[in-house]
């Protein structure tokens, strides 16, 4: 079977309804706090003007990415980045399809250029002066696993630290009924091919089969997972929060899972 990709986690970011950043999520995951109220994502790596105007997808992705990069202590300008989303900015797609159906020549140019799937990657690289490669990907319902494999492959293949940000927002309108996304969620990781300064190690191997996700029994947690394709990474984020060495499977494609061995230094 495939060789494993070994990468180290240098930074983590997260935004969930009820946990506005990674530290809040750690407290919830460890049972030290209950989920709080839902707060607007703090995308403080974006300049104030952009932060005010940015669509929700960009805010969410940049909020998680900013936390992860800050924890890593690395310079965002040097980090290749992979932004992943199953559905992109559904609110903008809904607006576009609505406008095109009624008054197509009145389409907003700003909404149009914000509609591209790589809008968060574009705004991120502009804000951080990042000239490294940036990508925007989708893998349908298994977007998170597909993106984790892609980011880990990039880190190992090019021997570089890589920023991975995975986000989805709630769908709206007729489109919203077609997607499985009913609430926003984002998480981010800075993955490194080197162990220095990292607490956690991921060994990632593609394995045939789709094992599916089991319910955790935690109402808040399971509701988030059910609401958003990007939240399919939550079991990994929870294990990271609990600093608990474990093995888990994450769907990455049709008939393909990632087997992930998560290890912490003793």
């Amino acid at each position, binding site marked *: 079977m495939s060789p494993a990709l070994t990468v180290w986690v240098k930074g983590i970011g997260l935004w969930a309804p009820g946990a506005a950043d990674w530290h809040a999520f750690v407290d919830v995951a460890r049972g030290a706090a209950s989920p709080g109220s839902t707060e607007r994502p703090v995308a403080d790596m974006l300049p104030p003007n952009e932060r005010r105007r940015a669509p929700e997808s960009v805010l969410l992705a940049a909020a998680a990415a900013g936390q992860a990069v800050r924890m890593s202590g690395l310079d965002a300008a040097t980090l290749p980045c992979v932004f992943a989303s199953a559905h992109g900015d559904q609110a903008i797609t809904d607006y576009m399809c609505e406008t095109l159906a009624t008054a197509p020549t009145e389409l907003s140019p700003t909404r149009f250029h914000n509609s591209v799937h790589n809008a968060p990657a574009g705004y991120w690289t502009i804000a951080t002066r990042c000239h490294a490669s940036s990508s925007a990907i*989708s893998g349908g319902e298994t977007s998170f696993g597909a993106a984790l494999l892609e980011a880990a492959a990039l880190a190992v293949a090019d021997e570089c630290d890589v920023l991975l940000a995975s986000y989805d927002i709630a769908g709206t309108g007729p489109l919203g009924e077609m997607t499985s996304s009913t609430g926003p969620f984002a998480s981010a990781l800075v993955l490194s091919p080197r162990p220095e300064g990292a607490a956690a190690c991921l060994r990632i191997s593609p394995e045939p089969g789709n094992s599916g996700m089991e319910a955790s029994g935690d109402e808040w947690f399971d509701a988030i997972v059910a609401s958003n394709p990007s939240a399919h990474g939550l079991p990994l984020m929870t294990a990271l929060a609990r600093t608990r060495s474990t093995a888990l499977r994450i769907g990455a494609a049709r008939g393909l899972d990632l087997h992930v061995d998560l290890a912490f230094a003793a």
Partner: protein
Amino acid sequence: MPHPMPPLAVRAYTATSTLGRGLAAHADALAASRGGLTPNDVSSKPLACWIGRVSGLEDSPLPGEWAEWDCRNNRLAWIALQQDGFAEAVRDARARYGASRVAVLLGTSTSSIGATEEGYRRREQGRMPADLHRPALHSPHSLAGFVAAYFDLEGPCLTVATACSSSAKVFANAERMIRLGLVDAAIVGGTDTLCDSVLFGFNSLELVSPEPCRPFDAERQGISLGEAAGFALLERVQEGDDAPLFVGYGEASDAHHMSTPHPDGLGAELALRDALARAGLAPEDVDYINLHGTASQKNDEVEAALVARTFPASTRASSTKGFTGHTLGAAGVLEAAITLLAMRDSLVPANLGAVSPDPGCGPQFAWQAEHADIRIALSNSFGFGGNNACLAFAHAGAAP
């Protein structure tokens, strides 16, 4: 940092665009310098512009077995997969390596959004009409999902959606996965079809030309949109291989503006240097460059300056968007296929549409078709968000 890459064999490749279905139709049009742009007749409301349209998609629904995936974009992908023995080559790779050892890595900018647009036009009580109640269509991943299902593949499957660099960047994804041993072969490529989102979207940005596009012409007035599908099957090079070679790639970001290129072509130059470094090439090794050359004012100005300052006069360069229009997410793979044809047929395609060259263009520009031995060639692709990619190919036996 860039890592030198072992060349990969391009085991099979194909393209379908307004120039026709398959490589022979493209080679014929390029040899005759015959473009395929026609007046727009696809938008749901009139929009005066020229387009590169693939004829016959309306009358070619997917076969019954695949009806669930039926939409204009997947129809075009399916038609393209039937050309040039491509589907057979994929089935052969699947038989040799196994379903989980072949990746599907495809680029698109709009995927099946034409179906979503149609659903909104035909809403039933404010909801998606029953016949379009197919969630897999209303997703950026529809194209790759369809291709993986069609070939019954269970390897890594990814959609890259970085606007107009999408189907160039998937070559890089494939190289990494093959080099790391995650897979043994990868289907790369992409499909984009004409729809209201792109026609009225680019119109809203005032980037659409009222006449057939004229890349690098001093009087250029903007882009002509087109649709295309293209695919390539990448594998490790075998002993005695005579397949063309994929030898390098570069990816970089402008970090400048969402819809305007960096004024100095910074990201484009970084991608070019990255591609040359991975391939172990110098600019003077490059015989031909298929330019991004959209015929927008800014893109062409920046790209012409980059070519003029980087390459010797012996390097030939042209944009082929005057033939096909700008096929957006499919442009990377369509132009990679055209680049491979240029190498195969020793023919530098004309820079169709340019009558009075922009004075910023250097001596590298091939305004008319030229016969030349092309052993090393590049293809440039730049997208919204300042997303740049450059691919390097070599004639079999000419790997650096």
